[in-house]
């Protein structure tokens, strides 16, 4: 039994380290806020963390393909703007707004993917140029902060609906969908193309199609994140997405997703996003100026990655 645990732990150094870090943060958190494990704080925290978790899930999808998405924040803002400008008064209206926002995000993702697959430009260059494009489209849809989200929806999202933590449920559903997708041909193809594109092509995979589908899927995750952010804040802001680009990359990197593609698990990303989110809150509790949170975030990123590189180098020798 012990051998099995140690061997499993050795295979998942990132995840174990991250779990230890998460536990330490949770213990400290419990010290400041003893209601941490109550249903109410699960609702509050999941409402707060949903945008980052889903954005990081989108970034993970792209990074598993060996790419990187610098336009993620712009696409998130686009989905948010489309969702909030759609004047939804009835329940059907909300559904239409969600569908419209998701369509916009998926289309943006698929366009990125098509350029990456066919244009022969590196993903970082394509998504860099695309970030201008999509933030421009967002500004056309919504030139300044505004828009409208039905109050009932905002209330249900932030305070729970009949005792159900809606955002936590949404995150669980999205992760379950990913879990199922991962076992299908398309999910496996994603890992195969990211791990070894030539090999995947040689074994008969449609590598370009896989890339386009992967970027479109990332768009869907990002779109959901944007909708979540709009519901959380009750309105939309065309430039609010920008920090999500780098934060999503940070969550992925913390979660052990490789820059070279094909390596990493979605659960790592979720843990990474949780650590970033909880640490931010923890700093608020400790009474340190919130200005320090960026510093702590940056230091953790470097330390975590340097430690990981150090450990894996030791293992390789």
């Amino acid at each position, binding site marked *: 039994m012990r051998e099995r645990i140690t061997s499993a732990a050795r295979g998942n150094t990132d995840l174990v380290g991250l779990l230890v870090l998460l536990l330490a943060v949770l213990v400290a958190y419990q010290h400041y806020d003893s209601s941490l494990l109550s249903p109410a704080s699960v609702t509050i925290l999941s409402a707060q963390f949903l945008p980052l978790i889903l954005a990081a899930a989108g970034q993970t999808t792209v990074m598993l393909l060996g790419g990187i998405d610098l336009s993620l924040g712009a696409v998130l803002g686009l989905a948010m703007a489309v969702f909030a400008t759609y004047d939804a008064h009835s329940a059907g209206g909300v559904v239409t707004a969600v569908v419209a926002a998701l369509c916009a995000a998926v289309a943006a993702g698929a366009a990125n993917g098509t350029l990456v697959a066919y244009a022969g430009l590196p993903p*970082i260059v394509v998504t860099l140029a695309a970030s201008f*494009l999509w933030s421009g489209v967002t500004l056309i849809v919504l030139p300044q902060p505004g828009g409208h989200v039905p109050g009932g929806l905002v209330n249900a999202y932030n305070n729970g609906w009949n005792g159900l933590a809606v955002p936590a449920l949404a995150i669980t559903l999205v992760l379950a969908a990913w879990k199922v997708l991962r076992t299908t041909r398309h999910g496996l193809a994603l890992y195969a193309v990211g791990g070894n594109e030539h090999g995947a092509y040689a074994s008969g995979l449609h590598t370009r199609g896989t890339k386009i589908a992967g970027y479109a899927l990332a768009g869907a995750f990002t779109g959901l994140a944007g909708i979540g952010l709009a519901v959380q804040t009750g309105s939309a802001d065309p430039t609010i997405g920008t920090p999500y680009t780098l934060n999503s990359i940070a969550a992925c990197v913390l979660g052990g997703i490789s820059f070279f593609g094909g390596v990493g698990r979605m659960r790592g990303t979720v843990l990474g996003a949780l650590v970033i989110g909880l640490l931010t809150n923890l700093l608020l509790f400790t009474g340190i100026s919130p*200005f320090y949170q960026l*510093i702590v*975030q*940056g230091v953790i990123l470097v330390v975590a*990655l340097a430690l990981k590189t150090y450990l894996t180098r030791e293992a390789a020798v």
Partner: protein
Amino acid sequence: MTGVTGTIRRDAVVALRGSRAAWAFGVLGVTWLAAILFADGFDSVSNVRYLVQTASFLGIVAVGQTLVVIMSGIDLSVSGVVALSAVVCAKVASGTGGGVSGIMAALALSALVGAVNAGGVVWLRVPPMVMTLATGTILSGALLVYTDGSPSSAHLPLLDSLANGRLLGVPWAFVLWLVVTAVAGWLLHLSRTGRYAFALGAGEHAARASGVPLGATAFTAYVSCALLAGVAGLVLLGFTGTSSLTMGNPYQLLSIASVVLGGTSILGGRGHLLGTVGGALLLTLLTALLISWNLSEGVRQVVLGVLIIGLLLVYARERRT
């Protein structure tokens, strides 16, 4: 006879196709011609003067970015360094220290950030993207703490004349940009360090195996890049007279875009510094042109994005292996 001219012509075509930097200037020339024909005021001397003046802020940052990109790195902390330099200089200058000590402090801190970037990449083996992203994040936090969220403004005669003054009708900022480009061009294309940078960009393992010093090259590149971002921050401070925590933000993506539009491969190992100069001028000209057409900011960004993608498709595609 015809055979010889044919060969020369073929050589010229091959050279042109291979020289992406020439493409950047070609597109710049065509765009400028189009601007003169289809927009008002682009043929006046004062307009050209203003254009090269505003292009130098971006251009100085982009020259530094090129040094890093050539050795297959990337610097995502330049926006933070631009703000750092301006904020620190303004604060020191408006406080007890004078203008000169403000400038010295700003440049020293900028160089320090570059050294930290290089140290993380070389010793901690953190990927450049993550390392510079982290230092950039730490910098914005540190600036918030340092200024309590409200940076000060300062009027420094020296920086003011550097940003707005002219030498024989040419803006000092542009002269500074040219000098910076000349020095960086020597460093990258003529010095041994430059050859090392190209070698590292073309293939790190092979370069290291053949004795290219990763450490010294990385430190030179990242420190120069941060130092130039710091210089740009100072010139911007002179230009506007105020410092803000977000004043560096536009230069983050635009500096990388200038490098790529100038024909340098983002994967490193291939490119020319002059291309970056063309890229920065081109981006500034395109922005000015779109503004002169009274397009809304959204439409302007869409057009800029589409143009960048289109131009890259024409001449910056990577050879498929």
